């Protein structure tokens, strides 16, 4: 069902949508049709098409910023009603800093580059900027589309506000106190989790959840690690692509100035390097999209799944505590009724959570598998395509003296 976005390189700037299933659900379709980058903000144009009754119009269009998305995510994760659901992870903040800096440095008149090199570097960096831009749009879109596809989340009131309210949401970014608050909350959460599982001796009765917990803990750590390493590989490919630029230019100029016998050789080598540059650039961006992005998304998603497990555990702990309180009340024969009611509540809540969590986790697994499958296949196909284009023997055959390469 759900998978992170693919961005076929070289396609139009319009981000392509998720899987076909989501796109064809007529009752609620959300997409980001446009995005504009201003100074340090990105403004997304969110378009909604819906046949659902509570929307005032069948087609809506609003402009939202990144902070709005974060606000929306937080309302979900802080809402106890959704405790049994894996909340789709918020999209990462658009980060053009590095790319912008590079472009600026290039434009500052670095005189060691020839005109040709400058043009090529500029092309590379602009491509990089565009790719980052497309990615951030895709991330934001996936977030919304997952919400729209989820049977429970899509009915959330804040979600409607987000999609429909045509004024600025005026969500201010978290101030320092709130950020710190969030930070501490996370610490408290992990401490709490450790306490629940360790000290209080809470026994996990359900095998399914026991297995899921162990699995998710390890999986999350591993995915995070692989994601990091994939990023490094991608950056290496990028720097290789940048290295090819001065080499190809230098070979080209040698080719034009050299004695006749060497001209062809140098020019052919220059041409090959130019092709390799494009190849490395594409390999870098493909690995970024198909591998890095996939891994990053599932790092965040598995974290969301872990959060769900924690919430369930918390509910279980509450249930246990309610049981103990009921026992104590019964022993002292004081306030038994409220204790009973409380215990009932906790029990219900826990069982609801467990049922919902089970479903969510099963969905998570199938989502994950299909996403990996799709992306790995596409990765392999793209790598093959690029390798074939650049290594084509026929392009090099005319070089005098070369052995005919095996076809």
């Amino acid at each position, binding site marked *: 069902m759900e998978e992170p976005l693919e961005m076929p390189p070289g396609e139009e700037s319009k981000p392509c949508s998720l899987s076909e299933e989501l796109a064809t659900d007529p009752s609620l379709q959300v997409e980001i049709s446009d995005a504009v980058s201003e100074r340090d903000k990105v403004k997304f144009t969110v378009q909604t098409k819906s046949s659902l009754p509570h929307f005032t119009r069948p087609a809506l269009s609003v402009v939202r910023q990144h902070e709005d998305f974060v606000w929306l995510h937080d309302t979900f994760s802080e809402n106890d009603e959704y405790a049994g659901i894996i909340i789709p992870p918020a999209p990462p903040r658009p980060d053009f800093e590095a790319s912008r800096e590079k472009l600026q440095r290039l434009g500052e008149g670095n005189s060691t580059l020839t005109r040709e090199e400058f043009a090529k570097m500029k092309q590379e960096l602009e491509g990089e900027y565009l790719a980052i831009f497309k990615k951030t749009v895709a991330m934001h879109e996936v977030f919304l589309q997952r919400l729209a596809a989820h049977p429970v989340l899509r009915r959330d009131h804040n979600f409607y506000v987000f999609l429909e309210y045509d004024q600025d949401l005026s969500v201010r970014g978290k101030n320092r106190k709130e950020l710190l608050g969030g930070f501490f909350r996370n610490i408290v959460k992990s401490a709490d989790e450790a306490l629940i599982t360790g000290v209080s001796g809470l026994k996990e009765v359900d095998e399914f959840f026991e297995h899921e917990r162990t*699995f998710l803990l*390890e*999986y999350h750590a*591993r*995915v995070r*690690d*692989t994601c*990091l*390493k*994939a990023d*490094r*590989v991608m*950056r*290496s*490919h990028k*720097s*290789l692509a940048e*290295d*090819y630029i*001065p*080499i190809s230019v*230098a*070979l080209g*100029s*040698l080719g034009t*100035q050299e*004695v*006749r*016998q*060497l001209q062809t*050789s*140098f020019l*052919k*080598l220059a041409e*090959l390097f130019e092709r*390799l540059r494009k*190849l490395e650039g594409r390999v870098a961006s493909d690995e970024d999209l198909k591998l890095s992005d996939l891994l990053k998304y599932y790092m965040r998603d598995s974290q969301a799944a872990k959060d769900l497990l924690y919430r369930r555990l918390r509910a279980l702990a509450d249930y246990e505590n309610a049981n103990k309180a009921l026992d104590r009340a019964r022993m002292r024969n004081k306030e038994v009724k409220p204790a009973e009611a409380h215990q009932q509540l906790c029990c219900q809540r826990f069982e609801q959570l467990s049922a919902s969590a089970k479903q969510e986790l099963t969905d998570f*697994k199938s989502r*994950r*598998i299909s996403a*990996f*499958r799709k992306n*790995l*296949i596409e*990765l*392999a*196909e793209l790598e*093959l395509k690029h*390798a*074939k284009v*650049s*290594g084509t*023997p026929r392009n*090099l055959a005319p*070089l005098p*003296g*070369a*052995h005919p*390469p*095996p076809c």
Partner: protein
Amino acid sequence: MAAEREPPPLGEARQPELEELEDGEDLFTSTVSTLESSPSSPEPASLPTEDISTNSNGPKTAEIILDDDREDLFAATEEVSLDSPEREPILSPDPTPAITPVTPTTLVTPRMESKSITAPVIFDRSREEIEEEANGDVFDIEINVSDPEKVGDGMNAYMAYRVTTKTSLSMFHKNEFSVKRRFSDFLGLHSKLATKYLHVGYIVPPAPEKSIVGMTKVKVGKEDSSSTEFVEKRRAALERYLQRTVKHPTLLQDPDLRQFLESSELPRAVNTQALSGAGILRMVNKAADAVNKMTIKMNESDAWFEEKQQQFENLDQQLRKLHASVEALVCHRKELSANTAAFAKSAAMLGNSEDHTALSRALSQLAEVEEKIDQLHQEQAFADFYVFSELLGDYIRLIAAVKGVLDHRMKCWQKWQDAQVTLQKKREAEAKLQLANKPDKLQQAKDEIKEWETKVQQGERDFEQISKTIRKEVGRFEKERVKDFKTVIIKYLESLVQTQQQLIKYWEAFLPEAKAIA
């Protein structure tokens, strides 16, 4: 090492030949006179004409000449000599004989007649040897440098390399032999050859550079990959150095080279150390040279030289730039390889923790593919470096040698000009004395004039000689360079293409695994 570093007195450090060459001019004249008396009728006719053409340089030679045509304002003599690199480059200070058409076969005849040897070390060459070389055996010599071995311990340790020679040349005692040499031996050899041949215009291939950091690591005994890499880099560089040196027909005749290749014991070249007396002298000389170069303003009457100077200047700049870029490429490719290996490991771990069997298997496959790709990257980085980058580095140093030779020519010219100026002064002095009517001093003045007239003539001859040698050398150098570059570029291209094709294979093998994820 420290113990042996007492700087030998400057005089003793020099080679005997060097001292002879101090009175360079005299040596030349005497040589010329002795040898010119002895040229018996050459036997060029006996040399089969096929020999020249079997030489792989044959067909290419013609090409180069046609190219140089427009640049070659000189007499066609030079084209004659260009065509026969395998003949020892015998210099003829006398006006050369009339030139016959420039075809390989007819070259043999005129060359032999105008022979006279100036490099003092060729005295002991016998006729048969010369002919034998002309038979096309000259390049039948193969040098390998191998088996680096650490000798000794601590700071006194050094690497000894095995130098193996395989040859059918008769000037060597055996057909196949090997010796152990250390790095300073190579430097010593280069130093000897440079002192003998550079200033008369021969392009002597430069030796590999010293590296204090690299060697210290090896001495200290760090058995890590960077010191093995360093040793391998040096071994390959030494091999290329020797191969280039023996390719040079004049240098091949040099007894010092022969001694280096053959004799089991070689006197230690102490004056190659940077801080020895000879080393310091070298540095002082270099500085003096640099200053001189700036003050010499030569009237270049020969456009060929001006063009060549410019051409080599350009080439030098471009090669330096390219070399720097390629070094960056090598570095980044190594990084890519390391990162790919790390990613492969991580992906394998991820595959292990994945509980869905098919996906788990696919991830493990991905990890394997990435590992293989890492191997590819490593091999490519190896090729980047040893095939391409080192070639560029070698040629940057070679071009420096060419520029050095051109500078020597300038110095030679300067010397000639100075002699002319002095002669003029002497003549003026004589004229004055004539007017003042002092007969005793007059005779001395006349003697001095005679002396300086000879010097001027010698200066002119030397200048023309060195110009001629340089033309020939540059021609040979260019030919070698074209061959070198072409071979290397083709090899490098093939390695790049090969890498791509391997990548295709790996990904094609992976694709079905990815598709198999249920």
